[in-house]
């Protein structure tokens, strides 16, 4: 015969059917625990596919691991070897040139385009939308297609650019856009400008639209001309956007891989080799995983340092922010 009540381990009496033991514990805590199950898949996937490789590659960067052999601890040797590695230095130089191309050519061009689109030169809203959409198209084009397209444009014998050069300046004017070690970096920069100027311009357009019109109107009433308004009001107020675009452009430049890989394979004579491509080659073509990990962590260090310098340069740490 069932008892009319149950006694818990602590001596308390419960009505029949009241959960006890684990069920009681679960009953009490389920609302706290269940939400974690919903977010757990992300954390588990993050740990396996992101956190673990990051930790593992850091570990490997202090080891010699070639092929499928067991890693052997070599301390800082991989990092020391990197300092004497001419290919790493060359790839660092190339990547820095790409970053400078972004900084000195792409960002000013993007800003100019944004100012033009936002100005009375493009008075209709539909035209502004058209330009904004047009700016976005190169980014939607895959790196493979863009590189293929530029390889056709750059072709030495039958490329469009050389055919125009030949038409106007004769046979001697042909340029080995992707074969000549002296011009190959410029060819990559031009491709990057085509691909990324538009998206940076969109960021600037968004920033420009957030500047109150009253400020510009007040300055105009006070006698400021277009240039003075731009330099004295627009650019200072755009500082956060310029900082964002600069940091992302430099980060992106230091992580560039697909365009030089597909267009030139890093050549000729490593003159277009990017750091990430060198990392990839070291890891997968040369199967030197320890050294590749050291390249990866050196790249991370460089990007962090540059990001901090940028933030300081643009006053991101200032109290008045």
């Amino acid at each position: 015969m069932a008892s009319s009540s149950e006694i818990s381990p602590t001596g308390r009496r419960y009505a029949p059917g009241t959960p006890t033991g684990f069920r009681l514990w679960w009953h009490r805590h389920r609302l706290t625990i269940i939400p974690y199950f919903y977010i757990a898949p992300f954390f588990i996937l993050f740990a396996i596919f992101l956190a673990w490789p990051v930790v593992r590659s850091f570990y490997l960067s202090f080891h010699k691991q070639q092929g499928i052999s067991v890693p052997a601890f070599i301390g800082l040797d991989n990092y020391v070897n990197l300092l004497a590695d001419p290919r790493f230095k060359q790839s660092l130089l190339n990547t820095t040139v790409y970053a400078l191309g972004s900084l000195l050519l792409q960002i000013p061009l993007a800003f100019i385009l944004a100012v033009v689109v936002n100005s009375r030169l493009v008075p209709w809203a539909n035209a502004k939308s058209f330009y904004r959409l047009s700016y976005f198209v190169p980014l939607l084009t895959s790196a493979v297609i863009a590189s293929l397209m530029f390889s056709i444009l750059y072709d030495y014998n039958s490329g469009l650019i050389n055919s125009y050069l030949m038409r106007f300046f004769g046979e001697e004017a042909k340029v080995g856009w992707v074969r000549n070690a002296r011009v190959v970096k410029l060819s990559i920069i031009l491709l990057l400008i085509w691909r990324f100027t538009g998206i940076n311009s969109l960021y600037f357009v968004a920033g420009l639209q957030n500047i109150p019109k009253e400020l510009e109107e007040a300055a105009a009433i006070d006698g400021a001309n277009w240039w003075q308004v731009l330099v004295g009001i627009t650019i200072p107020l755009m500082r956060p956007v310029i900082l964002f675009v600069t940091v992302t452009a430099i980060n992106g430049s230091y992580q560039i891989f697909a365009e030089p890989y597909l267009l030139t394979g890093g050549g000729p004579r490593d003159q277009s080799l990017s750091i990430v491509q060198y990392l990839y080659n070291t890891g997968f073509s040369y199967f030197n995983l320890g050294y590749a990990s050291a390249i990866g962590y050196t790249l991370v260090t460089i990007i962090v340092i540059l990001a901090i310098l940028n933030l300081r340069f643009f006053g991101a740490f200032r109290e008045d922010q």
Partner: protein
Amino acid sequence: MTQRKGNLSRRDFVRYSGLAAGAAAVAACAAPVAPAAGDASDAPSEDMEVIVEAWAHWEQGLGWIQNSMDNYGFSEENPHITWNPVVAPFAEIHDKMLAACASGVGVPDVMRVEQGRMSAFFKGEEICFIDLTDRIGDRMDDLVLGSAVDYWSWKGSVYGIGNEVNACSLAYRKSVFDEIGIETPFETWDDLMEAGVVLKEAKDMAVISWHDLHDGDFQIMLFAAGGEMFDENGDFGGINDLGKQILEFQRMTIHDLGIAISAPVTGDSTWSPPIYWEAFRQDQIACTLGAPWHNGKLGREDKIGPGQENEWRLQRIPAGFGANGPTATHGGTSVSIPKQAQHPEEAWQIIEHSHLTEAVLQDSIERGIWPSYIPVLDDPILNEPYDYYEGQVIGELYKDLALQMPRIFQSPWAPEFHTAINNFVITPVLQDGADIDAAFAELEPELERIKSL
């Protein structure tokens, strides 16, 4: 806020999640215990269906093996064995192979490894593949070893077999040389050089194009001259008088005589992209050096194609350097069995059937290649006249060259060495006319540095 007893804090949750994820990751990364290759106790019985998974970077590379199994009786005799081809782009499939070997997870039964990517597998003390030396046994004598096994061999062990005999030859456009009264074929490189001078003057056409972003031409001429690209220890073997003579010849024809040009290639495809063949269609170049996959059938749409029928011929590599050999090997893709393969015995059965019997002819039927298996080289399929070469029986030439194929060594540092050789020597010398001695002097410490990593 105080923590209630028995409640799970967020910190604890993250900690436990991390532990769970870590355990899962460790479990996932743990190399499965693979059956020892060739262990009979693990071999499935005849009744059990076995699916042999194979990876390659192009469909035909696996398709012809399936067809050889069907057409040459293997599938009938072994109905329980089926072939499961997995194809992915070149870089991706080779990266997957390395990752599979390194992790021991998802390893297929057969990998088709391109020769240029094989050396990565020879790094370190452990090699991913089963040594096939004993399995091939006496049948080594039936193979053109320079093409069939040397690229996939290291320290005396064979880790893969290539089914193509990549006997290099010189293809020349006989019609243009006939027009200017030059006698062909060319006995020596000097003959070709003299012909080039006349050709340049008469037709403003380059006699040959040298690859200045790729060391392939240098490699072919070095092998044919009896030299070594890599020695038995994997070191570069071209820094010597022979290497310098060959390079000087190439440099001179471009820069001093102006009778040769840099090969019209693209940065990402440095051997023979479509624009390379376009230069031949545009009457810019009269000769091309390479293996059968390169110049064996120039009438194909993906080579020169229609328009120059009956104008081309093939000949042995001209003499003039070192041992004056008539040929060299260049390129190829192996079939290799990973040690962690699930069905190594069945994989070997298929390889044995498709590479060491007449079934190898299937690939000749499908792609027009010349097999590295000597007993079939007299087969009529391989000895039909080729119209594009005005009925020349190129099979006879290839058989002759195959039997004189020089042996070569592979190097664990081959990809890095090739890059360094191109960067320090080939490109500066052929593109800018740089000093050869200085270029080789700069190359030596770089090769040592690469080895030290």
